[in-house]
């Protein structure tokens, strides 16, 4: 552990307080997050996050790899939403090179990205509910997540770390059954969301565990720099798909669900609504799927973007993911920097948790929805 990591000796403890080390081996820290809790009885008085257990130096590695070789690293940032990671990187390079991606490829990308958003939210719901003690919903969501992963596997060839896109479009066109499978899923899924909501939304215990827990005002959320559902639950209508449209998102009709007070229950409702909106987008994209090629015609074999820089952002399931790319004209980037939504959103944890009980901390880690692969990079 590095010397600037938080440790017990830095804190001043009253005689009624104790330090509880939560993680990195703990079932509810969603990976290798270490949280140091200063507890008074069960009340959280102070909290520190210690990250870096999954640090792999992705940004530095990228400086030594050619542009196509970098895409798989983006699979492994937010490993439960690999396609969204791929998309932002591929689009950043395309912007730098000035490549025009065919419309069919753009539509397919939107479909895949939105399906991946649903899987990410399903995983969030599963683990969040499990942390609060509702074990059964975990299996229900994984049943539906499996359907999407099958669709993705049939198209891309991999389930999680997909490496879905090439710079300029797709390697292959969608498999013949793709449209049928996705439509079958779309027919089935809204009923399943209703099922989850039946189990949770009006359950007294669920309400008691989420309503009023971890309230974050809109000003606070903006100050910390939160994005994604966590920000929208506080009542800020900010979604990159609308605020700085990319791909073909302006062509689709969908709403941005927002919350009122920014508590855990609002964040739950917002994500549930987002899944429904994703279905709408996929439906529209599938209905209007254009004919044509899926690969841009004029992408050179060796990718050497012209010298320059670009900052490109996408709406990932966790929030606004950004790529800052500096090219010096060679076949490797001069600098690549990722703006990870999870890392920024995690900063809210302290504000959310202080004054709540220890049992709420796991609910709050769940509600922020972090993936340590992206926090640590």
């Amino acid at each position: 552990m590095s010397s600037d990591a938080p440790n017990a000796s830095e804190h001043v403890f009253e005689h009624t307080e104790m330090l509880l080390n939560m993680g990195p081996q703990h079932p509810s820290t969603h990976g290798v997050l270490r949280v140091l809790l200063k507890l008074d009885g069960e009340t959280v008085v102070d909290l520190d996050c210690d990250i870096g257990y999954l640090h792999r130096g992705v940004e530095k590695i990228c400086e030594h790899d050619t542009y196509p070789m970098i895409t798989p690293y983006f699979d492994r940032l937010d490993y439960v939403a690999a396609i969204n990671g791929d998309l932002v990187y591929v689009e950043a390079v395309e912007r730098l090179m000035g490549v025009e991606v065919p419309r069919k490829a753009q539509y397919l990308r939107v479909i895949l990205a939105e399906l991946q958003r649903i899987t990410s939210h399903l995983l969030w719901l599963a683990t969040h509910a499990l942390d609060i003690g509702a074990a059964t919903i975990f299996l229900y969501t994984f049943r539906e997540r499996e359907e999407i992963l099958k669709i993705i596997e049939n198209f891309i060839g991999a389930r999680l770390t997909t490496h879905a896109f090439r710079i300029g479009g797709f390697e292959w066109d969608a498999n013949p059954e793709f449209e049928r499978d996705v439509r079958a899923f779309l027919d089935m899924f809204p009923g399943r969301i209703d099922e989850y909501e039946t189990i949770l939304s009006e359950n007294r215990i669920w309400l008691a565990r989420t309503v009023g827990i971890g309230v974050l005002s809109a000003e606070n959320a903006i100050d910390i720099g939160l994005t994604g559902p966590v920000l929208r639950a506080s009542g800020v209508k900010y979604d990159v798909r609308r605020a700085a449209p990319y791909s073909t998102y302006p062509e689709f009709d969908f709403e941005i669900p927002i919350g009122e007070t920014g508590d855990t229950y609002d964040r739950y409702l917002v994500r549930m609504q987002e899944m429904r909106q994703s279905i709408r987008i996929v439906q529209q994209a599938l209905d209007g799927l254009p004919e044509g090629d899926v690969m841009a015609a004029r992408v050179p074999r060796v990718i050497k973007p012209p010298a320059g820089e670009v900052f490109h952002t996408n709406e990932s399931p966790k929030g606004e993911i950004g790529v800052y790319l500096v090219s010096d004209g060679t076949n490797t980037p001069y600098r690549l920097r990722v703006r990870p939504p999870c890392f920024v959103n995690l900063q809210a944890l302290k504000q959310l948790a202080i004054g709540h009980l220890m049992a709420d901390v796991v609910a709050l880690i769940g509600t922020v929805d972090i993936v340590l692969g992206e926090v640590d990079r």
Partner: protein
Amino acid sequence: MNRAWGNFAQRRKGATVSSIVRPGLVSFAVSLFLCVFDAPLREVAAQTQTQAPPPPPSPVVPTWSPVELIESLGVSHGFAEYVVLPAIQFAVLLAAILTAVAYLVYLERKVAAFIQARLGPMRVGPVGLLQPLADGLKLLAKEDLVPQGADRLVFLFAPVIAITAALGLLVLVPFGAAWGTVTDINIGLLFLLAVASVGVFGIVLAGWASNSKYALMGAMRSSAQLVSYEVAVGMALIGPLLFARSLSMQEIVEAQRFTGLWFVVLQPLAFAIYFIGSLAETNRAPFDLPEAESELVAGFHVEYSGFRWAIFFMAEYTNIIITSAIAVTVFLGGWSFPGLETAVSWIAGTDPSTPLYSVVFTLATLGVFTVKVALLIYVVMWIRWTLPRYRYDQLMDLGWKWLIPVSLANILITALAFLLAMRPDQGGVFGLLEVTKNGLWIGWTGTAWFIAVNIATFTVAAWLLKKLNRTSWTTDIDALRRAEAQKRAGRLATATERGAR
């Protein structure tokens, strides 16, 4: 670290003041009223006296016992009755219960699997039936670890306390009629509750001795939870005891047989309180905070491994069996079932003194009891895999501000209704029930009366709870939000204040 439970007591005190004192005052006032106006009430009653129908004869009980069989082998009567037979019974019982525990784990996994749209254990044996055996062997083969810095002696001894308290209770559970039960003492139910609460020592000591903060917090939660819910559970049992007029487990069953009514009909509210309380007593979801996997990793037994861990596991499931058995005995008629005697007489004739009758009757009652307990345990599992988990302070609220006031109100109203329903010459008013030498006789008018009283009790309980829990009763999300914000501010203020001091 020793101060981890700092404000547990304080938080509980806050919850109790209004909820305990007020019903207590009311009950005091009512009893005062009854003392003062006792004589006038009796006079009124003497005029309105009605004649209750004559009670039926006491139900049959087989008279033959295996003691006679043992005696015929040349053993003296006392030795046969008090040593040989109980020893055989307990050996059979122990084997049966340990097998049942192993298969409850299997059942739990299967029930969970079916609720969760999967199959559960399928690999070991046909449909996974040998899974408990494989699990047991695996656990026996594991290393028995004692963590560094643990209080070694206490750490090793804690599981023994837990399992002893659990298994020791089995002798008193009325699994069947006559010799289907090991023993029956006249303070049976009290003894059960008393010994059951010894089990908490196993948990507390395990948590303490582990030298782990997670284990300690699990133990602290567990002790607070058990102590709180024991009050509600104990008071819920008073209601049916008014009708049973005995603490002996067998006599409670006989009382229900004689009355022809399961006490759940007369005391539905008490049954609900007992059932919820027993979930908390056995650390089952939604009250499984002491071992809350997502918060405390595994709670009090986080440092245990191998067979010592398995012992805790067995103690837990034995406790589930016992609390369900108490519920079945007190509320659901125990081993009795309408028409059981008729069914037995088809096979074994009608003479209750023959060995055949005794055997068939006892086995039938054992079967009835097992089925009832199994159904109740299924409900327990069903709840576990459906509901999320309560938080610590909410659990305390539920215990002290919901269950205890309701159980107090229930005792008060039931006792009052009971008093009014008794025959005037026995100290009552309406004469709807009769205390005979065989037990309490309640005619259909009495049953109707008590059902009406129950409806009234529900209303009163709902009113009381609404008064006591203004914030948590509401379904208005904004009100819940405000309440939670207030709680948070209060906690922060307490913590800061203590810090300043």
